[in-house]
């Protein structure tokens, strides 16, 4: 209620001042996800005292001319399993008002923002991961010169229903040389330069160490594009950022460097990418862990797989230290060629490899220091390696085929904090057939198989998996799906686990912008990732209901 009153008070002067007599527009969207949880010893799923858990939210935005205000109501009663229970409760954690006048854009309240690639600052939300590190404060954007955009803010960061202790100050400038310099206006080479600076203030009340109260980071970036070739690069540096505590503290600075070079023409795309990250865990509270209060975001340098079993072993960026490379080639074999066939064939090859830094990340303590070599691959700990091929082909007017092969090595110890002492080597094959029965009626079927390397040098985890999916869609209203993931049983740490089916059925109905989806089944425990950020999801057995809507 207080928030609504605050918004009303904030909005009124603008409404009175505005010359525009139109009433403005209101937009909104709504999302509700609920699940029941039943005991199921076969998959180690437990029931919950509440019987049912739910996550839900609704955004309401008001816009009139240069003025926008919005709120988001969120409800976790109680939070779905896999989400932090600190979310339990409901309220309005997001409210803002924004006004633009003579090129000056002012936001008060909550805002999301990103500087460059996010190496030193990215405030974002990803509801599926339970991440919302929205800022709360002031933000200004201004363009004092043609081609130059400045952004600045002072804010605190959301932590569940509260704020982190740090006060964050940030400034970013981006200069589009082609717009700013008339001599380059018609140049075929497009160039953008950018620079950013972020500083966190947090009081030091450590009884033993002198901790920096203001911890800063800066970054420079460039983006150059000429015809079919483009190059992007960003370098970031973080000053000493010890975590606190009195047993030990690491005062080493952090750095990150990311670069990518791409070539694109009709039917062919090539991407080469590399990054090096050292000691770049930057948060709005020193020593914060998990996904709490992250100030920066290091984009993942491996392919984010969408198919279930290909995404079984996903890699998440290790901000404390990694060196990674990725290459991708997309090629389309033309129609009526030998390989292209009647409709053409798309092929994508992707390879990525990420290893740890030489001797680990940088360390600087009162008694010693370590600085890893800038570039070292041989004999370094492998975090992740992925080679995958994707083929898409239209076989006839009614049938489309997608085939995938993935060969990956996954360091579960580093990525999940486990201790198996060996990496997992998995090979995954996927075939998807999309068959158009008749207008508006489509069947999608998928078969996926994951096989782990049985060689003793590798950890066999849960052994092999097979998955089948059939989805029947009647556009634009209905879909029905049945999916089964089957594990043939395995032995781990002396315990034998029986074979188990994870069967799921679901159906959905859409009308206009409303969508309803009801499902029942078993979910396996696993890692769920978006953009290289992951959360662990426990196994469960129950009904799910999902409703989304917008206006």
């Amino acid at each position: 209620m207080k928030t609504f009153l605050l918004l009303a008070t904030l909005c009124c002067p603008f409404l009175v001042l505005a010359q525009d007599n139109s009433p403005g527009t209101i937009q909104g969207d709504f999302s509700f996800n609920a699940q029941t949880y039943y005991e199921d010893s076969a998959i180690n799923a437990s029931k919950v005292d509440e019987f049912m858990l739910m996550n839900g939210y609704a955004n309401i935005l008001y816009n009139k001319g240069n003025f926008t205000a919005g709120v988001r109501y969120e409800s976790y009663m109680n939070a779905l399993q896999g989400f932090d229970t600190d979310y339990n409760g409901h309220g309005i954690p997001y409210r803002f008002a924004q006004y633009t006048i003579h090129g000056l854009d002012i936001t008060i309240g909550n805002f999301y923002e990103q500087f460059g690639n996010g190496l030193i600052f990215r405030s974002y939300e990803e509801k599926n991961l339970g991440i919302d590190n929205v800022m709360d404060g002031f933000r200004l954007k201004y363009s004092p010169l043609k081609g130059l955009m400045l952004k600045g803010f002072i804010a605190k960061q959301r932590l569940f229903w509260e704020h982190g202790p740090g006060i964050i100050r940030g400034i970013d400038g981006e200069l589009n040389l082609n717009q700013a310099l008339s001599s380059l206006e018609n140049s075929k080479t497009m160039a953008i330069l950018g620079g950013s600076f972020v500083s966190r203030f947090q009081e030091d009340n450590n009884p033993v160490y002198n901790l920096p109260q203001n911890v800063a980071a800066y970054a420079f970036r460039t983006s150059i594009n000429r015809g079919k070739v483009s190059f992007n690069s960003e370098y970031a540096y973080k000053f000493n950022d010890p975590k606190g505590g009195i047993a030990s503290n690491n005062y080493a600075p952090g750095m990150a460097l990311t670069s990518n070079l791409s070539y694109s023409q009709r039917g062919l795309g090539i991407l080469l990418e590399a990054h090096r990250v050292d000691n770049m865990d930057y948060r709005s509270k020193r020593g914060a862990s998990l996904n709490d209060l992250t100030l920066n975001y290091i984009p993942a340098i491996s392919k984010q797989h969408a198919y279930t079993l290909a995404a079984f072993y996903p890699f998440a960026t290790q901000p404390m230290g990694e060196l990674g490379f990725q290459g991708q080639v997309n090629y389309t074999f033309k129609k009526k060629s030998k390989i292209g066939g009647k409709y053409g064939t798309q092929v994508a090859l992707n390879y990525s490899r990420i290893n740890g830094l030489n001797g680990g990340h940088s360390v600087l303590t009162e008694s010693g220091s370590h600085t890893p070599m800038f570039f070292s691959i041989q004999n370094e700990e492998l975090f992740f390696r992925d080679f995958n091929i994707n083929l898409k082909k239209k076989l006839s007017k009614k049938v489309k085929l997608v085939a995938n092969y993935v060969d990956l090595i996954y360091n579960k110890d580093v990525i999940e904090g486990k201790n198996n002492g060996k990496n997992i080597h998995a090979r995954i094959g996927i075939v998807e057939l999309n068959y158009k029965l008749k207008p508006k009626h489509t069947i999608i079927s998928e078969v996926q198989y994951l096989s782990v390397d049985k060689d003793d040098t590798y950890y066999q985890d849960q052994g092999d998996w097979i998955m089948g999916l059939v989805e029947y869609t009647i556009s634009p209203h209905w879909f029905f799906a049945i999916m089964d993931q089957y594990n043939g049983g395995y032995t781990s740490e002396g315990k034998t686990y029986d074979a188990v089916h994870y069967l799921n059925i679901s159906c959905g109905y859409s009308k206009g912008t409303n969508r309803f989806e009801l499902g029942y089944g078993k979910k396996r425990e696993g890692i769920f990732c978006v953009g290289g950020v992951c959360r662990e999801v426990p196994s469960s057995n129950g009904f799910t209901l999902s409703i989304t809507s917008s206006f």
Partner: protein
Amino acid sequence: MKTKLSFILIVLAFLSACDTIEQDDFLQGGTNGSGDTTTVIKKILIEDFTGFRCKNCPDAANELQAIENLYEGKIVGIGVHVGYFATPGGDFTTDFRTDAGEDLDAFFSASLSGLPIGLVNRIGYPNALSQHTDWASTVSDIINQEATVAITISDNGNQISVQAKELSTISGNLKLVVCITEDDIIDKQIVDNSVVNDYEHNHVLRTHLNGTWGTDVSLTNEYTSFDFSYTLDGSWQRSNCHAIAYIYNDSNKEVLQVEKIHLTN
């Protein structure tokens, strides 16, 4: 020109918002906040939720030890082995979990928040969990608070006797918990990414003598005695065991006083 100058000034202002500490100045001169020892000292309970398969948990154990060393005689630590990371499996055969520990874990959602994590006097409930890197700061904030409760403990070999009294009037229902911990247990522990076979586990919670949440107590300004009989499990080394008694306010779960003695041999 004016705009450029303003921009440069703003950037310079921001650049000054950074403190760089030189290597010689990482450590302060050193103070342990020792106060007047003639009055009853308020001691502080740190509960460290941990597990022998949790690779970062030794950092928290080291931190707890460092805090105990810094505030000598004022800190009582309990290592509560809980959840997935404390579940035996493979070469990790010892079960350090306890019923009380599992109850505490469920109540404070420790495992769900990710280990290592802990409680300092359970301050801040329902958001009482804090990371080990924050424990010392919290302790330094409260270390000089006046004690509101006095506790003494004695042991006759099979019975713990706790005497407690109020030092000032306290509103709310008070509860007394008595438990046993063991030090110097040599067992496996993952440290970083390696298994250490002879890791020394300290502060390990072995059992609660009067249930997870303890016994209701009514205190006056005179000592009242509460007795609890106990038997040690055969696998515990009596010479390494301690009895810990703490009193907390049930309304906000905050621990008001804690005391610890070595069990008599």
